[in-house]
Structures are given as C-alpha cells and as structure tokens.
C-alpha cells in the first residue's frame, strides 16, 4: 500500500487505516463493526437506496448522515455507527418497510433486533421492498438486463422493460437466489419472477423435493 493511498479514519472510537476508494461500510466490516444493510451485496455495485446503513460522519466540524455503503472513507473522518439519531432512523426505516411488506423474514428479524414492537401504519401486502438486487444482478452478473424498475414513488415496481414479456430473460434464477426477501416468500418470489418475465414455462417445480428449477 502506497503511503498516500492510506488514510486514517476513526470508527466508533477505533482508529483504522483505510485505502483510498474504500467505503465506510467496507472499513467498518474489516474492523468487525456490524452495520445493518438491505440493498448492499459484495458482488454488486452499491445502490444506496434502502438507507439502513446510515452512519454519522464528522469532517472539519461538520456532522452529516450518510449511507455507509456508498460513501468513501476520507482521511481524518470520524464515523459513528450507533448514535441515538442513527438508531431512530434505522428503526423508522424497518418500520416503514415492514408496514409495506409485513411478511418478510429479514425485516422481521431486524425489527426484533431493533426492539420494534408496533407498526403505527396501515399494513400493506407487498412482497418486494425494492432493494434492487435482482435488477443489478441481472444486468451486472448475468449481463442480461431483463428486469428494471418501472413507475415512480410508492408505485415503483420491478418489471421487464416496458412491462411486456422479456425475451431477454434466460431463466437462470440469479435474481431469485439473490433476493433477500426470499426466505419466507420463496414461492412468491418465483411467482414474481415468472411474472417479471411473463414466461411461465421457464420455471419448473420438482414434484419430489418441491424446489424450483430453471426449465430452459
């Protein structure tokens, strides 16, 4: 490591060395500090959308709240990952997502971890919390780009381009494997996938073990 490429940052009171270009999340994980994430995946370009990974940074007297998965570490930066303000934000984010998708295990487990007892909002029935991993995996790993976001605001959804049958989908199942919502809604996510692609025949289901397979 060249000297000028190495930076010093402080995370939760611990001094760490960081390489130029490393994100705060990467430095924290190396230091064994756990920051919860929902839309981050090592194999994909950071997306910065769920905002669960927020941390407080101070640089030159200015305190900011940033998403650690997309914010590069800077020399002299002081990072705090567990302040009251950060905890309040994370709780609210899980509360909001759980109100949208009440059935998803990963959200429920975060809710338990954060001590969330009550959802003060009307419950929805969505099964996707729009982390965008499937979209990124399909384009970055599979190189196909068969699915994308459609619509705006709360109506946002994952669909093949222009909502029509995607002839590009090769039925590899990468999107469904990577989907963090899968634990509880395996079937729904597959259904979702066939819905994305509107090609029912590409997904088969084994009659013995009941698992799904790509039927191309």
């Amino acid at each position, binding site marked *: 490591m060249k000297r000028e490429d190495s930076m010093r940052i402080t995370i939760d009171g611990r001094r760490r060395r960081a390489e130029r270009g490393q994100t705060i999340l990467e430095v924290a994980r190396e230091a064994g500090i756990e920051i919860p994430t929902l839309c981050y995946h090592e194999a994909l370009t950071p997306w910065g959308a769920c905002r669960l990974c927020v941390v407080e940074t101070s640089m030159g007297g200015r305190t900011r709240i940033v998403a650690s998965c997309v914010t590069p570490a800077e020399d002299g930066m002081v990072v705090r990952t567990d302040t009251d303000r950060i905890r309040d934000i994370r709780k609210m984010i899980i509360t*909001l997502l759980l109100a949208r998708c009440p059935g998803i295990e990963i959200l429920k487990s975060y809710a338990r971890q954060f001590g969330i007892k009550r959802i003060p909002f009307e419950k929805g029935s969505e099964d996707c919390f*729009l982390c965008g991993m499937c979209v990124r995996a399909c384009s970055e790993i599979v190189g196909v780009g068969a699915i994308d976001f459609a619509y*705006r*605001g709360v109506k946002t959804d994952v669909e093949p381009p222009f909502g029509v049958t995607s002839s590009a989908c090769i039925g590899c199942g990468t999107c469904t494997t990577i989907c963090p919502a899968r634990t509880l809604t395996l079937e729904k996510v597959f259904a979702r996938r066939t819905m994305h692609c509107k090609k029912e025949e590409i997904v088969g289901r084994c009659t013995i073990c009941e698992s799904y397979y790509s039927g191309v």
Partner: protein
Amino acid sequence: MIRKAKHKTPRKTKAKVASKTINICHGTSCIEAGSGQLEVAFEAALRHKSLSADVKVRPGRCMGYCHVAPVLTIEPDGVTYGNVKLSDVERIIDKHVIGGKILKDLLVPAEPAYPSLQPLSRAGFFEKQVLIVMRNRGRIDPESIEDYIANDGYQALAKAVSEMEPEQVIDEVKRADLRGRGGAGFPTGLKWEICRRSKTSETKYIVCNADEGDPGAFMDRSLLESDPHAVVEGMILGAYAIGASHGFVYVREEYPIALERIVGAIEAARDYGLLGEGILGSDFSFDISVVRGAGAFVCGEETALMASIEGKDGRPRPRPPFPAERGLWGCPTNINNVETWANVPPIILKGGEWYASIGTAKSKGTKVFSLVGKVKNTGLIEVPMGTTLREIIYDIGGGVLRDRKLKAVQTGGPSGGCIPASLIDLPVDYEELSKAGSIMGSGGLIVMDEDTCMVDVARYFVRFLEEESCGKCTPCREGLTRMRQILDRIVEGKGKKGDIELLEALAKVVKDASLCGLGATAPNPVLSTLKYFRDEYEAHVYRKRCPAKVCKALIVYRVIPEKCTGCQRCVRACPVGAISGPRAQPHNLDQSLCIKCGACYEVCKFDAIAGDAIYVE
C-alpha cells in the same frame, strides 16, 4: 287514437353537448386561489346536470397565468378563463359548455402577461427592483441576436476570449461570489474550478438546468423566452473557463416557446461564429445542444438529469462522485441553473467587485422570484439579496389582496417552508431563509392570507412531492406516503392522538436519511408549519376544528334564518342545488346535497350563511 309516447320524458332533460375537457390548473397559485374547490364544484354541477360523461374535469399544470389565478382551460376550444369564482361555475357550464358562447369577462389574454408589459400605474412594483438577470426583458426582441448584441450582448465573451485566461474568468466569478440559483446556493466559481481541475478525463461538459419542475414557478421559462442569448453567452463563458467542449440545455418539455427560442438563439450564435470551431477567431471551440426534459420533477436533480440526458432512467444516484468529477458519460460535468448562467455575462463585463457590492455578506447579487398567491401585484420580480419580505410583499407586491391579514409566506417551491407573518422583516438570502426553516429553492414566493389553512398547505406540498418521488430510497418513497396519509387523516377530521408526533418523527427521518435533495427537503413544509403553526394542527386533531375554515370535513354550512332575507342569491350560486326556498323567506340548505364548496357563503350579502367549524367537546 294517437298512441302515447313509449317513454316518459325524463324528469331532468339532459342537454346535448359536444365532449369537452375542463382543465383546472393545479399550480401553486391556483390551488391557493381555490382551484381544488372549483374542481369539486364543477364535478358536482356536471353530475347534477347529467353531463359527467361528456365533460371531463382534469387537473392541469401551471400555465403562467398565476396573476389571474385560479385559471382553467376548456378544450378543445382552447379558451382560457382566469379569476374564476365558484359563483362562475354555473355560468361557465350553461353559457360556454352548453351554449357554446365565450364569457368575455373571464377571458385571459393568449400570451402570459409579464409584469414588464403591464401598465406603469404599478410604479411601486418596479421601484425596489434591480435588474441584472432580467436586464433585457421586454426591451429587446428575444428572437434577434442583433438586438442582444446592440445591448452589450456578447461583449463579455469578446472580452474573455481576447483578454482573459480561463482561470481569470473563474477568478472573476469567484470575486463576484456568485452562488447557484437552482436551489442549493453552491459557490459557482468554486464549482467551475473543481471541474476545470478534474483529471478524470480531458473531455468536459457543461449543462444548463432548465427543468423547472416547481408548480407555479416560471422564472427560468421567462428568462429563456425573453433573453435566450444571455443564457447562451453565459454558457460559452463557462465552457471557456472550464475547458468544456460541449454543452447541453435541458429544457422542460412543457415549454415549447422557450425551446424554440433557445434553439433559435443557438443557431443564430453559430451563424455569428460565437459557437462552433474557433470561436471569435480564437482556438476555443464549443457547441450546445438542446435536450427535452423527461417531464418529472425529480429530473431537475442533477444526477437524475444527467442520467436522463444519457438516455437512462431519470433517477438520482448517490453523490459522491459529484458531477464535477464524474458526470455525463463519466466525464467531469458542470451543471448550473438558467439564472446562474444568465448572471455570468454582466459579471465578466462589469467585474466581480461590482456584482459583490450588491446583496448581503454571504449572498451577493440579485435573485429573481415569482411572487404569487394572495398579493396585489403578482409576477416575476428581481431584487437584491437581503431585500426584506416586507419590502417584497408590501412595496413591490402592493400588499395582501383585499387588504387581508398576512399569515405566512411560502418560499422555495414545493419543498420550501412557510415563514410566519411575524418574521416579515426577514432579509431574504440563503442563510436567513434556511435559519427560518425554509430554503431559497428556485425562487418561488407564495403569499398566504388569514384564510389559508397551514395543515392543508402542508398536505398539498407533501402530496405533490409524494407523487414526484422517484421511489428509489426508502425514507422518501415510503415516508412521504405515510406522512401524506397522516395529513389526510388530520384534515378529514380523523386525526388521532400521537399523529402529530408521528408526523414529526417521520419528517425528521425523511429529511436526514433520503438519498437526494428531493427527499432531504420534502419535509420542510411540514416541519416549518409544525414549528410556527403547531396550534393549527392541534386544533384539527384534538378539537376537530379548522381555524381557517378550509378543511371541508370540519365545516358545515347552514343558513341563519334570522339573517336570511330570502334573496335567492345563494340558490343561484349553489352548483348542486342544495339550497331552496321561496323568495323573501328564509332558505333551506340540504346537508345531504351540500358539497361544502362555500359558494353560498361567498355570495351572501347578509352574512346569513354560517360556515362554522364543528366543535367536538
């Protein structure tokens, strides 16, 4: 024997009309002036006359006729009516929609009337204004480059190219202390310098942000329409300073005239050798293309805007990297607002020091505002930074309409805040506005009088922003919807204990944790009204009362028999026929028909209609 007709004549005869659409403007000024109520009244009246199938009522976008708000357009006739009152609803349907006659007294002129073209009787309107950006407006023919040149046009460019190094141009802009007029107020000279010094690539771009998605705002459109060359010259100067080879003007699609003028100006500049290879005989080359906006408010955000120019989905991405390092196609890119660009030529021509002599300690020069709402003189104004709200509203604006009491001023567009009348002496600059819980934004100024319900105002803006949220990040996408649901509940009289606190907690998270500026500023309307008008929220939630008598669910209209003379004015005004009664006797108001539009309340000359709030003990 003559056979009886098969069918009885229906009781209500349905008038035969050609299908029409009534577009009721839902821009800020029009909403302020009651276009929401108008819409309800039209719908009810059409239903009443069994015309709903043929005549559609739709919300429309601001057309720049804010000075005669509320405004509506009847299509396909292309007729625009302004200052439409609830009592005009009946008349418009009977005379125009059914009768095919145009109501001359409501007609607004075909071209938006700019203040500079208005009679000089409004002298007070001009006294406190200082025109730098709008220097040529109304004085030159915007389609004539010769006119622009005859008024010092392209002199700054000639000076820069022949006498100044690019760094000197940047220094001059830094000396002027010019800050971005698109919202955040970032120092322009510094931004240019970062972009010039960026080593990411040799190719560099500049962009003019003319997306202007704020409802009711029209300063950028007006600039492009009235003085397009000022923007073009500013961009050429910026490109020279930064070392950019190509520029883009990103214009909102709904601005056909602005588009035409800027395209025309670019062509004319090319013909004169001011754009293209070897500008003015130097070795500096630069050209500009025009891109039509994708139409979404969020596309005005710089990273979404760049994605849109690249032909991708117009959603914001996290910064850093900032555009000055990685912008269009990964190359260093400098984005400025229309007004920022238009400020550049005078700065280069007259010097940064001259510019910095105008304004306050940290905000220099002038700012263009669109002054709208309940104020006597509306329109675009340009004032030195630091001019107080009082000077703007009373000296320039001529005071509150109908001399009502001022309640608040909303600044900064949909994601700005509401400043209470008690802060009327606030000098308007970036710092002071933000201290007061609002923002400069792109320069919207909406004057609100005592008849405005602040909870309803907050709800209107949150709803707009909810619809414009791109949906990428959790706080903005989910949080705004939940905030809007709580606000809906409150204005419908269904607010619960704890709602205000939940709303506040949500607002803070959305502000702190959102990915882009839309989410980060979206809670301002709520936070500022909670800060200054919390009692109004409490009145709605705990006492089921709307102090301003705006929230319909919390109002009942009734006739006060002792005062009613039986004049029948209200009978004619009511769009749904809810009031009846023989002449000269107290009238009856049928609550089951009443749509709470308030038309009767408005027209009654004897104060015999009470629109009081329900009190729940």
